[in-house]
């Protein structure tokens, strides 16, 4: 199985870039095959999927495009940072070019090992994780990963975490290069003891971080908020004042689980971040409160798996949505959400998805 295979029976062909060392021959649910040629560096052509898409929207005329902080997205569906790697990990399952944007794994100034395992455990309708921001560092990203991503025709938003406001600024400066569509400022990761958490739970510090990022980039800046706070609207307003072009929420809720047999915390790191359907009601409430408090666009996330889930967030006031844990449940969740949203609009006579934003508030 060391050679790329061509499935001529399928009668359809697409060239997909070789993703790093590992090439993929992808094969989708619908039985269509995509051929991979190792080492190829062409712009990705995904005619087949494009055709499908065109077919679907031809008579449809639903505008799915949304604008976040001056950034035009094909549709309002993003991936949530840390759940989708750098995008290419999911390319066997779907055409990345169909996504509104890919938000990549959180980067830090220096490479990080991350926390010792066990790092994840399932809880009722939820997932606890304590990855601890394992990542290769911003320089590696710029040198090795970003150039590969250039082959895709979608927006890549880079999620950043720092130990000090200045570090955030430095990261922002380094990442202000072509190929990066926007920055998402993670002031909310609950797994980094050194600072991360504190920024997100204090409006003033959150604002300081955002101000530092804004001073170092002309890219759109999205502030990603922590749900582990008494008053989410206060934090949202503070980062808005500090110049954030958009806010995204929620990051994970701080939680834990105990291994009964071992009588020890199930995660090596003791606590972790809770995500998935379990947190959806909390996320939705915070999106509602935040949309009321700020004028900048809100990107909603937390437990979205289906188009119905996404609609709840849009109705609550989210201009776009991101899917995190949902990718683990169904690796094609993003695509089915995009298609489901489009179908909903068609069936309900909605010409522009933007019309639905905040519909439940009216």
């Amino acid at each position, binding site marked *: *199985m*060391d*050679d*790329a295979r061509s499935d001529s029976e399928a009668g359809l062909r697409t060239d997909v870039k070789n993703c790093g*060392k*590992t*090439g*993929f*021959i*992808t*094969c*989708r*649910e619908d*039985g269509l095959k995509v051929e*991979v040629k*190792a080492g190829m560096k062409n712009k990705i052509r995904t005619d087949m999927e494009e055709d499908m898409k065109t077919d679907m929207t031809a008579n449809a005329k639903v505008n799915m495009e949304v604008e976040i902080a001056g950034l035009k997205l094909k549709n309002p569906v993003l991936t949530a940072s*840390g*759940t*989708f*790697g750098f995008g290419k*990990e*999911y390319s*066997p*399952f779907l055409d990345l070019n169909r996504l509104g944007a890919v938000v990549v*794994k959180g980067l830090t100034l220096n490479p990080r*090992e*991350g926390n*010792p*395992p*066990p*790092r*994840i*455990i*399932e809880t*009722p*309708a*939820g*997932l606890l*994780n304590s*990855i601890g921001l*394992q990542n290769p560092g911003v320089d590696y990203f710029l040198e090795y990963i970003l150039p590969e991503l250039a082959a895709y025709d979608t927006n890549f938003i880079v999620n950043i975490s720092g130990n000090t406001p200045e570090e955030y600024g430095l990261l922002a400066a380094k990442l202000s290069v072509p190929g990066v569509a926007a920055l998402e400022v993670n002031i909310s990761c609950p797994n980094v003891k050194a600072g991360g958490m504190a920024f997100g739970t204090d409006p003033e510090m959150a604002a300081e971080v955002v101000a530092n990022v804004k001073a170092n980039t002309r890219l759109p800046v999205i502030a990603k908020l922590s749900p582990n706070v008494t008053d989410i609207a206060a934090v949202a307003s503070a980062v808005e004042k500090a110049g954030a072009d958009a806010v995204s929420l929620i990051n994970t809720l701080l939680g834990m689980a105990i291994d009964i047999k071992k009588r020890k915390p199930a995660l090596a790191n003791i606590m972790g971040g809770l995500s*998935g*359907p*379990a947190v959806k009601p909390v996320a939705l409430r915070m999106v509602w409160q935040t949309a009321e408090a700020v004028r900048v666009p809100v990107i909603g996330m937390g437990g979205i*798996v289906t188009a119905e889930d996404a609609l709840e967030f849009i109705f609550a006031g989210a201009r776009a949505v991101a899917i995190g*844990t949902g*990718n*683990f*449940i*169904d*690796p*094609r969740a993003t695509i089915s959400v995009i298609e489901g949203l489009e179908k909903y609009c068609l069936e309900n006579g909605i010409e522009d998805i933007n019309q639905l934003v905040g519909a439940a508030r009216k």
Partner: protein
Amino acid sequence: MIYLVVKTSGMVLEHVEVANGIKYLKLEAPDIARSARPGQFVQVRCAAGCSPLLRKPFSIHEIDRANGTIGLLYEIKGHGTQMLSGSRAGESMEITGPSGNGFTLPGDPGEECNALLVGGGLGIAPLLPLAAELREKGHKTTVILGFNDASRLCRTEAFAREADRLIVTTVDGSSGEKGLVTDPMSGLMKREKINVIYACGPEPMLAAVARIAEVQRVKCEVSLEAYMACGVGACLGCVCRTKSIGGKPYARVCTEGPVFDSREVIWNG
């Protein structure tokens, strides 16, 4: 290495209890069967809804390329496998795979190897297609299967068809040799030259196998387990500690593994 990973819908062809709390599941999944290699795994969505939430990983236990089917062997452990065990022939389930790296087949083409396969409990699952492929390639195989007791013994007939030699152990002696699955190893390796060891099972067992292999200076591959979320290398949730893979302290069991050179693994405790 090139691999195929697909999301597909697998139809249940057969689903039977083969030992106490252990079931054998045969699925129609031609896309997976076509490219699967021994040591790879699939992830199965055990139920609609979010209970359980995650797709659950299972080793590929049988590969029938001609008929486009794969077999799984699993233990009913928690909620996911409980839900899975309710599925019936004719129903279909979402699966993704084949995932992971799989075992490395030994030697150069034409060169005959003497391989030792050691499986403890459900760790026997990935060894069956490996034994089949080794036999097909003309290698010699000895398989040791270790069970807790006779009530958990299963699939010995299938292994007997593929292995040159089959040894069964149970902890309580209720079937086969009494003792641990590692007990017969030293004697065997004294009597003859083993070129490569493949092992799968609980971690303490794998650590013991790895120690024996190291002492005897035999190449050894172990298949590890870890709690998995994405299964495609994106979430970094499934890592194990290794000595140097990719220059990083942690390797992803789902992509750099589940099969590792036993010398790479840092064992707990």
